């Protein structure tokens, strides 16, 4: 199978920070807001270079979403930064009315998504945010897989007219996608061609899917791996093209199976080509404290879990 090299562990939130810094230099309309988490969101470079285009709103996320909506009136492109939990559930109605329904060009940038937030525990580990955001009409939902891709996505969403939810994480993870990649919203990336099973993964689970594919190859199972960085709009065609060949699919995400990527994929399959599907996702549960690796192991969100799911789904064909 195709080899991917981890060029060194890097956190996706730093990819966001690097992308935002570049936007600060290239797009004078881009402004940034943060709710007292500048360091965690890696926004310092943007702030240092563009102090007049940064708004520290304090621990007041609802106000931040409203201010962001207002800043678009006047042609600004606001990027809000806080944890995924406080970027979605805490401010759902503000996003729904003042941003999504109002069609405002706000980029909601959400770090520390999912279990890999780690030791802070379930209060901060949102596993429902993809569902919340994909249900909002007009909202684009993106969950890039590594540092390079998060940086590219951050830069790309400034060019998209309309609200975007950009989800990324806290821990250092394998950085394996090209540094100079062009990020296309809604365009899935075929990472490995295979014939027995399709693995559709998003975010931190993409690297795990590649590790799983290697293990499956050793077992004689040929796995196709798709990096679906955009959950909405979903690249239906890429998924259908792949399952037409493999006849089954495993979806993998750091999110509840209810409302996540897996359900979006199921809908595409049921309407077009019903094939067996297995879900690598959390099972309608909250998280808990622990290291990222421990949590991903305990809640079944790693390469080993994807291998098991693939073995199972292949037998169901």
């Amino acid at each position: 199978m195709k080899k991917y090299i981890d060029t060194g562990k890097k956190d996706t939130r730093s990819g966001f920070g690097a992308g935002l810094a570049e936007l600060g230099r290239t797009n004078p309309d881009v402004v940034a807001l943060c709710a007292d988490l500048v360091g965690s969101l890696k926004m310092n470079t943007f702030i240092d270079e563009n102090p007049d285009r940064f708004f520290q709103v304090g621990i007041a996320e609802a106000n931040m979403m409203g201010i962001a909506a207002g800043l678009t009136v006047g042609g600004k492109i606001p990027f809000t930064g806080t944890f995924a939990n406080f970027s979605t559930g805490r401010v759902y109605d503000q996003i729904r009315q003042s941003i999504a329904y109002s069609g405002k060009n706000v980029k909601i940038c959400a770090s520390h998504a999912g279990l890999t937030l780690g030791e802070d525990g379930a209060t901060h580990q949102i596993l429902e945010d993809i569902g919340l955001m994909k249900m909002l009409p007009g909202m684009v939902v993106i969950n890039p897989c590594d540092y390079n891709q998060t940086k590219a996505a951050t830069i790309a969403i400034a060019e998209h007219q309309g609200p975007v939810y950009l989800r990324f994480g806290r821990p250092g993870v394998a950085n394996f996608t090209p540094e100079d990649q062009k990020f296309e919203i809604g365009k899935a990336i075929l990472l490995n061609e295979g014939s027995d099973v399709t693995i559709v993964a998003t975010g931190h689970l993409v690297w795990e899917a590649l590790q799983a594919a290697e293990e499956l190859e050793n077992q004689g199972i040929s796995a196709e791996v798709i990096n679906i960085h955009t959950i909405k709009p979903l690249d239906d065609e890429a998924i259908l093209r792949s399952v037409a060949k493999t006849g089954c699919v495993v979806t993998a995400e750091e999110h509840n199976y209810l409302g996540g990527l897996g359900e979006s994929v199921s809908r595409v399959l049921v309407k077009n080509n019903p094939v067996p599907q297995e879900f690598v996702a959390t099972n309608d549960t909250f998280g808990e404290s622990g290291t990222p690796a421990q949590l991903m192991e305990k809640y079944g969100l790693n390469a080993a879990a994807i291998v098991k799911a693939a073995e199972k789904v292949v037998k169901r064909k």
Partner: protein
Amino acid sequence: MANTQQLNDLVIQVRRDILRMVHKVNSGHPGGSLGCTEFFVAMYNEIMELNEGFDMDGVGEDLFFLSNGHISPVYYSVLARRGYFPVEELNTFRLIDSRLQGHPTTHEGLPGVRIASGSLGQGMSVAIGAALAKKLNKDAHIVYSLHGDGELQEGQNWEAIMYAAGNKVDNLIATVDYNKKQIDGATDDVLPLGDLKSKFEAFGWDVLEITEGNSLPAILDGMKTAKERTGKGKPVCVLLHTEMGNGVDFMMHTHAWHGKAPNDEQLEVALTQNPETLGDY
């Protein structure tokens, strides 16, 4: 600039519009709309500097954000009669396929509206954002917002009030429709607002009161004063003392008409008290 007679005529005509709009669809919010009629007429015809036509970004003009979106009837009527869209379109209020949704929205592209509102407590934050954009754009115009007094029970307002003062958003004038009533009764009975003036001042705002909030001269005078007090390092709050249901005797001095439409007989009485001036739509 309109003369006093023209403004008075407009106030009465807008009242008729409000009453006829909510009566036709047997829904909507006449109470707060009637209470703010003089304010809207003053704002859109005397106080605000407005460009011709409508542009979402509103660069080079004053902006207005309605936070208490349920008083859409007065907003729509005044926007239409200011020329943002045809007055006949008031006929479509709350009907299927209309741009005049129950609560205002940008979604259907109605000229004059820059944000959706209805779910309460969000408008001040939005107004602050627009005011910050004006500062970035070096656009020396004012951002106005209107809020229900009961709406201040929503916590987001106090985040916004704290932010605006702390960051010297002094090109913002937030007006509170201080009628002391909300759906379930008097604000004092539902959840007391306390001393609003002191609260805003404690947060660092410059506060002025318009005690006769249904008097055009008082509003014009008060809002001109408010305007003079912008640009001095503090956001400005106007406490506009209004009477819910103003101009229709049986709708005044009660919270009952917050969100209730008049029946046929009630409409007739109400319209008799507000005889046609500029022509019904």
